């Protein structure tokens, strides 16, 4: 069944569905990847990581460096993921010392630092490029939305599989123990630092790769938009609306975020306002998210019907 669905999704551009739909689905898969990985960190590992923009921006600039050196764009995607993962490994040493809320704020500072770095540092020197103006992405002239869509579809599916594999492995079990009580986990022989590091690096690679794919579609990158808090909002909204700590949550949440994005696009700033209101209301009224709510309702129903059957 999932294989059929993937096949249908893959042939969408060939059978000629409207461009707008392809674009929605492209964004859906990019956002899904980010939300899935954010869910892995915040929901399953207990790392309230507020700096996804740092990874996405770094991956985007890696793509710039790769394509400006006349290397193929797919190396930029892999390189973007790799640089993001390396960065995650690097900052894990100082940030894992920070606990709870300190980790959240420590990682929130990272995109701010990097944005200022990329204002000054020009990875590709030259006049009228780099700094605040940013770069265009080279070497993607022959590509169309169809190719971008396939890339996004691929990364989205990979992120779903990674979630499934990680959560069903020993790593997932260890992560759950770390999230619930890291001291107890450590005292029963779980290597807390290593497990967190693995999850962080896996998530960073996929977030970075998804970011690079987004910038291939966007065609240009600048510090203000790359190291922007908007990326965090997307990952956070999608995960929280769908249901944090549920595997299906990001699927539902990312679909709603894309839907809202386009439904509210013509209202401009009002769109952000409405997203903020939705975030607050969902968190206060349905903190377990839509998937969590549905699960609770059906579970209640099931247990009631079981009760009835037992009688």
């Amino acid at each position, binding site marked *: 069944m999932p294989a059929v669905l993937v096949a249908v999704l893959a042939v969408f551009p060939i059978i000629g569905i409207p461009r707008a739909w392809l674009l929605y689905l492209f964004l859906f898969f990019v956002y899904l990847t980010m939300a899935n990985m954010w869910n892995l960190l915040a929901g399953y590992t207990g790392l309230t990581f507020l700096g996804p923009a740092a990874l996405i921006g770094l991956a985007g600039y890696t793509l710039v460096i790769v394509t400006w050196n006349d290397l193929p764009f797919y190396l930029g995607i892999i390189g973007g993921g790799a640089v993001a993962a390396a960065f995650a490994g690097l900052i894990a040493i100082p940030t894992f010392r*920070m606990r709870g809320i300190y980790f959240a704020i*420590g990682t*929130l500072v990272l995109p*701010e630092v990097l944005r200022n770095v990329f204002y000054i540092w020009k990875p590709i020197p030259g006049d009228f490029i780099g700094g605040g103006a940013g770069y265009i992405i080279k070497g993607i002239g022959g590509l169309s939305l169809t190719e971008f869509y396939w890339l996004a579809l691929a990364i989205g599916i990979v992120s779903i599989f990674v979630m499934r594999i990680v959560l069903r492995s020993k790593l997932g079990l260890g992560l759950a123990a770390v999230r619930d009580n890291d001291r107890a986990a450590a005292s029963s022989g779980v290597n807390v630092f290593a497990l967190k590091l693995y999850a962080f690096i896996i998530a960073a690679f996929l977030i970075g790769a998804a970011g690079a794919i987004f910038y291939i579609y966007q065609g240009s990158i600048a510090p203000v938009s790359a190291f922007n808090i908007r990326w965090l909002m997307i990952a956070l909204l999608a995960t929280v609306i769908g249901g944090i700590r549920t595997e299906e949550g990001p699927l539902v949440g990312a679909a709603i975020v894309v839907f809202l994005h386009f439904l509210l696009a013509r209202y401009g700033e009002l769109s952000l*306002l409405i997203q903020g209101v939705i975030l*607050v209301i969902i*968190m206060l009224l349905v903190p377990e998210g839509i998937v969590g709510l549905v699960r609770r309702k059906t579970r209640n129903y099931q247990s009631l019907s079981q009760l009835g059957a037992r009688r």
Partner: protein
Amino acid sequence: METLGDLSRPILMGILLGGLYALIGLGLSMVFGVMKLINVAHGDLMIFSAYFAYALMTTWGIDPILSLTMGIPLWFVLGFAIQKYMMSRAFGISMEAPLIIAFGISLILQSLAQIIWSPYSRGLQAPYALGYISLGITTVPRTYLLSFVAALVVMLLLREFLRRSYLGKAIVAASQDKRGAELVGINTGRVYAFAFAIAMATAAIAGVFFGLTFPFTPTSGFGFLVVAFGVVIIGGLGSMLGTFIGGIVLGLTQTLSGHFLGGSVQMLFVYLIVFVVLAVRPQGIFGR
């Protein structure tokens, strides 16, 4: 002596700027200390106060500092309501729930400011805040001195309030030991709401003096949230003097790195210092 003469200006400016930063950090420190919540909307609430004063200034010509007679009570009530109707519920949900709700509030305030006042940069003006004032060795903008004095006054008032009044002592007690405070009959729910309200009142004051000193846009709040957080981290919790020193450290970092390496790197150094202090000593340098 020549270099020293050059340096007197950035050093003095840095210290004065530090006063403003400490004022911004004060409210964040209060909420953090009492409720263990990082109010990520703090910077936006502060900027919104600057916009409120801007609206009063442009429509009725009310002096920005005078407009605080309306701004402070309004922000006080707003803070009380946010804590009572949102945060108190969020604390019962999960650890990240209050953080996410504060994010939502931040987003709402930013887009509201953008809808009402457009994304263009605005500033507050007052006749007494224009130009420069001589402080013996060098001259500084009047607004810097004004903010510094305001920060000193607010901090002294808050310190006396926390030491002498019943409510102040209750806030300190609840921040030190919630259960203990409840056992001796303190209504911690109410105390939390008052603590949040007072923090918001200081944000209202900080916003007006910030608006007098720097131009602001709807998204200015976030950068100064990081600065305020840095002040709290360097200064540690529960120490008014520490907060003040934290502000001055960041103010000096900004003006001195700007002096030696140029204006484009000054914020980079401020953020880097915040990150390094967080990594090395998360409980703060002057913290308990």
